[in-house]
């Protein structure tokens, strides 16, 4: 087993409302709704400065120099920012691309984001990449490898990262862990936080018959530092495809209520990647989330 990371989490707050839940904060994001920042919207966002509490984006779209990173730096001046990686493939059996981690590290240094996250996935066999978030086999060997890899990333970035559960269309017969137990154990052994994607648990519930509420119950309250919601599309045979291409459905909003009840009002992000609508539509959906979150905080 990899040794426990030698650094300390960066964000320690003086007073936390639910101190029994989050003695140490895993991110520096506000406990409000945020919006996934996509390149086609970035100039409009800078011009109009919409009332969104925070943004999150994929570091891969800002590697190198030029106009994109210049625009993102301008966004960073106005809003808390989260960097949500999609390319590390931490669970690949072959060693990860060191250059990729260095590029993420230089962005983290340049932007000082309020949160950094990646996925519980793999992406590569030999020299070939899938450019996808592939589900892990939930085995002891995979867990030990991921603990090592997460530790290496956290040591390089010198901060706690969050790891997100992914949507899946298959499961391996070799699995010996339940998905959520595997993730919770990874967090316990590596010291990382968890980015709880409610939509992904829902997709896995529909596709694989895993119970989304049970999965959330298996995650320790203190390690969930952020939540994601998004929309999926349905294939002809009924399989749900996690395309981030539609508005959030009612079943996922209800699971989000359940998540907020269990984990408190942690920073929650609306993601949209395909069939990108006008910014105003996304802002309206974020507002729905804010309203639901406020109701929850008022009654909770």
């Amino acid at each position: 087993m990899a040794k426990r990371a030698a650094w300390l989490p960066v964000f320690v707050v003086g007073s936390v409302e639910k101190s029994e839940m989050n003695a140490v904060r895993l991110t520096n994001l506000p406990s409000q709704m945020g919006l996934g920042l996509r390149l086609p919207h970035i100039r409009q966002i800078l011009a109009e400065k919409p009332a969104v509490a925070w943004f999150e984006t994929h570091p891969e779209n800002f590697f190198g120099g030029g106009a994109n990173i210049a625009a993102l730096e301008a966004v960073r001046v106005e809003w808390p920012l989260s960097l949500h990686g999609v390319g590390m493939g931490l669970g690949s059996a072959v060693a990860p691309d060191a250059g990729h981690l260095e590029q993420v590290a230089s962005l983290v240094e340049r932007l000082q984001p309020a949160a950094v996250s990646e996925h519980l996935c793999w992406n590569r066999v030999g020299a070939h990449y899938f450019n996808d978030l592939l589900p892990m086999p939930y085995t002891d060997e995979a867990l030990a490898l991921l603990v090592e890899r997460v530790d290496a990333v956290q040591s390089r970035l010198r901060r706690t990262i969050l790891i997100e559960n992914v949507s899946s269309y298959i499961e391996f017969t070799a699995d010996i862990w339940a998905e959520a137990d595997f993730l919770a154990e990874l967090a316990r052994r590596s010291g990382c936080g968890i980015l709880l994607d409610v939509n992904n648990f829902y997709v896995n519930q529909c596709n694989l018959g895993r119970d989304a509420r049970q999965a959330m119950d298996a995650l320790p309250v203190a390690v969930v530092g952020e939540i994601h919601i998004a929309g999926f599309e349905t294939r002809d045979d009924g399989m749900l495809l996690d395309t981030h291409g539609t508005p959030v459905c009612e079943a996922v909003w209800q699971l989000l209520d359940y998540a907020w009840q269990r984990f408190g009002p942690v920073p929650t992000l609306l993601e949209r990647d395909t069939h990108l609508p006008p910014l105003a539509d996304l802002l309206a959906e974020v507002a729905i989330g804010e309203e639901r979150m406020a109701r929850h905080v008022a009654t909770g």
Partner: protein
Amino acid sequence: MSQLAELQRAFEAAVADPEADWQSLFGRTCRGVVAYANNSLFNRAGALDDAYPVIRQMVGDEFFEALAREYARTTPSTSPDLNRYGGMLGDFLAGFAPVAHLPYLPDMARLEWAGHLAYYAEDRLVYDWSRLASIPPEQMARLRFRFLPDCALLYSPYPVASIWLAHHGGEWPSLDQGAEWVWVQRQQGKVTVEAITPDRAAWLRGLMAGMPLELAIPAALDINPEFPLSAALAALMTAQAIEEIDLL
């Protein structure tokens, strides 16, 4: 091989042949493999959208999408970053029979890829040309120029720079007007494309290969005995293409 490596290799084989029987690997969930086969193909095909807008305009949306899928089917990704995928499209088009009637297409793809790389090239500080004043004139011949990573020089037997410019609001060239040397550079965050004269191109090619100034000049003089060196140097300065000048 570790069990994890074996499982991931088996997954790769399943994605390559999703219709085969993968029950031993995935049990009752094996019908999900098709989704990964589709993702793998469409993620890579979609990555070409960003880099090749002119190719898309030239062949039309429907053809471009079929072309991108065919490229994705035959060209694996070797980077975790999809912005790095698609760099071989020029070579692919050169061997793609359905576009054989558009012989300038491969070079247009190479031009667009050079622009794509320029767009994402690292930010560097530009050389401060006032520093050149401290170098004695008799040593100028031994200057070596280091170019910024956001510029590139290309050659095509077709007027690809003029065609590219026509797709960005310029005049349409005659296709038989012949070869062009193309200077591609990012300026103020935008990719610029320019056809340059063969003498200047020959000189730049030498400089970009790391030749000192004196060794880069003869190739230009071979093409044009009146090669205007000081104008070419002034253009290089105005273009802000140089990161550093070393004295050999």
